[in-house]
């Protein structure tokens, strides 16, 4: 199977993000639409229902390096959130604590990460964590 080059894959993801083809709980797009390297992305996760995250919007910034998608992107939370995989001082998502980053595969996408983070919010070990006030930022 042919390897999809970085830019092709990112363009595909960009279109998916702009058209909102996912399940609607996550949204993502380029931080700067003029950025031809498509490195810096914004992401939002809409908190899952029936949890403390309900109706909250979490903003993230995602950096896709030169070797994406061979290596996973780096992900930072901009909105303050209390999750076991998120560094509480700078919002960095620890790749060793999020399985999709730890076991990154080429066919994973930005949406995969956002969806997994959203699942994490509802996971039993995170569900009960006290959350900071909405709107506070790292």
């Amino acid at each position, binding site marked *: 199977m042919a390897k999809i080059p970085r830019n092709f894959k990112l363009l595909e993801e960009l279109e998916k993000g702009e*058209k909102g083809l996912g399940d609607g709980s996550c949204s993502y*797009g380029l*931080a700067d639409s003029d950025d031809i390297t498509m490195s810096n992305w*914004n992401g*939002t996760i809409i908190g899952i229902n029936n949890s403390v995250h309900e109706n909250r919007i979490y903003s993230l910034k995602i950096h896709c390096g030169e070797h994406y998608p061979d290596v996973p992107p780096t992900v930072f939370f901009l909105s303050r959130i209390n999750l076991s995989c998120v560094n509480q001082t700078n919002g960095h998502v620890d790749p060793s604590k999020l399985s999709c980053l730890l076991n990154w595969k080429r066919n994973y996408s930005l949406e995969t990460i956002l969806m997994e983070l959203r699942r994490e919010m509802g996971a039993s070990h995170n569900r009960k964590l006290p959350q900071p*006030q909405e709107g506070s930022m790292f």
Partner: protein
Amino acid sequence: MDDSENTPQQAIVLTIRPSSGSTFTTAISTDSTVLQLKEKLATPELPIASIRLVYSGRVLKDDDQLLFYSVQEGHTIHMVKSASNRASEQAVQTVRPLNNNTNNLGGPEGFDEQRMLSSLLDNPAIRDMMANPEVVRRMMMSNPQTREVMENNPEVAQMLNDPSFLRQSLDMARNPKLMKQALRNNDRALSNLEMVPGGFNHLRRMYRSVQEPMEASRSAPQPSTDDLNERFAAQLNADTRPNAGALNTTALPNPWAPRPQARANPMFPGFGTPGMGGNSGSMGGFNPFATLGGAPGLSTPSGSSSGGGAGQPPNPFAAMMGQRAGGGAPNPFGLPPLGEGSMPPMGNNPEMFQQMMQFNQMMRQMQQQPPGQAGPGLPPSTLSNMFGSPFPMDTFGGSNTTSTTPSTTTSVAPAQAPEERFETQLASLREMGFSDQSRNIRALLASGGDVPSAIEFLLRM
């Protein structure tokens, strides 16, 4: 990607994807602002203020034009409603007016200060330091003002020396939500306390010994308001200030204790009637039956026939006692004389209520026993004695205007003879084959005029 900037007037069709419900499309020109888009999307159920729009991983700001986000034809904007935001805004609004006088949450500056404080306390270094109550205490003691207050007011000193209190207040300072919650709770607790008779005095004492010294240390005393306060306190008949230099160990007043007549509170017409309950009775100062009698001599303007019980919170024993009093005339129950003190002293605890319920059941069982079995009927005074009331039985009747015969708390006028009162019921009982008139009357009296219960009573007799 630059199309939208070249043709700014272009109208595009956007797909709106709500967090719940199905997607829909809307047409809007790219040079309109996000706010204008929200106006289009707003419905009565979803006001503009609670709409949040997300596109390409960004939350759209109201003042920006859509082309700023380079939204294009066919793109999807996510719509999320922010119920939580609104709720907290409302909470802020309700808390604010209540705390205008405490000056730290008063205006917008107050909130800035609070936010600053909470962000400061969120700093991990500070948090570590604050986790140690000893450090906090030393910090407080280093402030001469605080020290002075502590020396003059042992209550405050005790509070500030309590590590758990310190930790709690720090947690609160860190989390604005918790703080608001605590303030709300505080307000509610205060108003609850105020409702208790005598509670106001206690509140006043608390204010005097804790809050006042703290506030006084912040600002120079204002003699004029102090004078006014004194005069107002005198009018309210409030206690004088407790001894300075001593801990206030006075318990909260017993809300059910009898109160002097002059101070009888119209809000508690049934409580604390002279002679009912009280510390001399076996109830140990708690007399739930006090609500039943519009006791004679009560100075409050309670209703005449239904007695003070009418405006009272629901009393589980009221119905029972109504029945009891109703059957009181021939007294078919044959109550064994319960001596004074056979009831455990009661406080206002749930155990006591359980015991009362057991007692209630016991009474019901006795009600179902034939009268001959437990000996001749007891004089009504035994019954009332049992409840620690020196008043004769008719205090339970709820009527201090009528005869000496025990009356019922039912709406039936007690002056009539039972035959007349229960004429229709007696007739239907006769029709059913219960021929013994006196037994029927007794049964009806016991059941308060309720035919099915009377039949049950008759069948058990």
